[in-house]
């Protein structure tokens, strides 16, 4: 059994070397190859049975014996863009669990930072300026306000738990409507998305990027958003029509936005989003050591199961795209 591992595409973590060493010790029967360049991957994939990382189409097509791909992240949109992978029998797994808490924290971080104007406060601090009365009555309220969440998967639900602790009224839409929970007042089907936007003071996009959600939040949809609402995008940039969002931010219809993802990443230097009332983070919402540790442990568990033919922790639905 041969396992091909690649370093994460960016943000190389020193923990990785320890992780690879640990895997080699824990699974001596597995031939583990750690490679970096696509060139080396093309060579080593030929007889590999399993792959850890974000595989490219060329590398995938060069594989003869591949049975399993494990994606270290949550979104598999780039992987299911490879039609041959979707058509194949290769099983795709991902790592949602370890990302949940830190991403939900990031969403609430953006919410409270926008609400209490922390971008401005940091500019003041940099200038050694005591802003004092500049902030008078300019914070946005959370208590009793409505948060609408697009998709109540694990991350959406974790956001809901936090928002509920801030006395917010939480509503959501999901592909699979479910009964209300102690923290979510109502969960509707996707067909009620417009209605959700119309009641939302805070609208959170946490849905996977699929053919169905591509540009789902377009100008027509933004027209339904409650006047003066804030928007948070945590899953994928392609779900939101950025031009429409920019227009909304400029007109004031949208009071502010927290964006961890962009349609084009890195966000182009000349994007107007940088200078509007936004907080932008570079697709980094899950940057905690616990997440890295958690996803390593998850992979280890999946590898153990693969070797003894047990079902994986969670298998992706390649056609659904998540």
């Amino acid at each position: 059994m041969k396992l091909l591992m690649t370093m994460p595409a960016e943000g190389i973590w020193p923990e990785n070397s320890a992780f690879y060493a640990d895997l080699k010790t824990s699974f001596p029967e597995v031939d583990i190859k750690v490679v970096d360049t696509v060139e080396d991957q093309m060579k080593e994939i030929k007889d590999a049975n399993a792959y850890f990382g974000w595989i490219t189409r060329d590398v995938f097509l060069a594989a003869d014996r591949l049975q399993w791909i494990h994606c270290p992240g949550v979104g598999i949109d780039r992987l299911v863009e490879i039609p041959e992978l979707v058509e194949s029998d290769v099983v795709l797994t991902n790592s949602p669990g370890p990302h949940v808490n830190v991403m939900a924290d990031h969403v609430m971080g953006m919410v409270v930072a926008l609400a209490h104007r922390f971008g401005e406060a940091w500019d003041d601090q940099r200038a050694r300026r005591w802003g004092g009365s500049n902030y008078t009555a300019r914070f946005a309220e959370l208590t009793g306000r409505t948060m609408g969440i697009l998709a109540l998967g694990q991350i959406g639900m974790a956001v809901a738990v936090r928002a509920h602790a801030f006395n917010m009224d939480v509503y959501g839409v999901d592909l699979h409507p479910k009964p209300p929970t102690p923290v979510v007042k109502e969960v509707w089907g996707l067909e009620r998305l417009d209605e959700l936007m119309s009641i939302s003071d805070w609208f959170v996009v946490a849905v996977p990027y699929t053919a169905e959600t591509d540009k789902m939040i377009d100008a027509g949809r933004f027209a339904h958003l409650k006047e003066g609402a804030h928007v948070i995008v945590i899953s994928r940039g392609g779900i939101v029509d950025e031009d429409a969002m920019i227009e909304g931010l400029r007109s004031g219809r949208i009071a502010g936005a927290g964006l961890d993802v962009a349609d084009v990443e890195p966000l182009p230097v000349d994007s107007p989003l940088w200078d509007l009332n936004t907080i932008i983070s570079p697709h980094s919402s899950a940057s905690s050591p616990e997440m890295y540790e958690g996803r390593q442990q998850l992979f280890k568990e999946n590898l153990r199961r693969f070797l003894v033919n047990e079902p994986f922790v969670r298998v992706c639905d390649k056609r659904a795209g998540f």
Partner: protein
Amino acid sequence: MMKIVLTGDHEPLADELRAEHVGITFTVATNQAEQLEQLADADAMYGWPTREAFIAAEKLRWIQRPGTGINQIVDLPELVDSDVVLTNSRGPHALPMANHVFAMILSLAHRLPRLIDAQRAHDWQAGKAGSSPFVDLDGRVMGILALGDVGKAVAQRAIGFGLEVYAVDKDPESPPPGVSGLWGLERLDELLEMSDWFVVTAPLTAETRGLIDSRRLGLLKQGAYVVAISRGNIVDEEALIKHLRSGHLAGAALDVTAVEPLPVESPLWDMENVVLSPHTSANSPDARAGGRENFKENLRRFLANKQFIYVCDKRAGF
């Protein structure tokens, strides 16, 4: 005829009150001279009196403070000794103050200063966490100094993040749902030793002034964070700076400082692991409206001789 003085920019509020309470005089004092003159024959006031004006006030029976903290009372011993009732606005302020605490905590935990600097430079890559990864809140311990209205609201939010919450208070009751422990002040050192996040919501009193000194900061876990939301001078600022510089503490967030505005030469401004806000934590429109509603309600009670809400203990100082 009954007379109520409002200090500050409160003409619209005075108009509302005149409409509601016909036959009562409402006057607005916008400076100290006006206050001295108006308060002399006033029955009640909304604001805070100068010592001179308070002493000259012959009929004053009630002061409604628009804010929460009443630590200035130490400069008004005559008020403490008098029969004048003091009420504040702690209820309406607690919610935005607790939200502010989490804006500060998540700014530190998710490296907001780095993000904003990168954003101002339009530099995507510079915002990456890199060598300063985020700090997960789930499963960490939050210690809260004083579990009053603000402390309780902070605790409720903390539980939503999976933090384990402990607190000390002058009058420890049974802990609210989800709070793992509520102890008396005598266990403050123990609380410090177990806290990853230590939040100061206590009022500034003789007892709390300088309470979190260098020794106590030293008890905090290596890599802990300190958040101060109530008043400066409870945490010793010099000692805090020392513990931040040594790396013993990972960061601090302060909405309040020993001297406000924070002097321009304070090292706190430029510390990369310090997040400051200018005593603004309760600045939400609802809280301000709530403070005015609170005053209106207390005014009705005052006129009907009913019990006030949010009465302060003048001797205790909160």
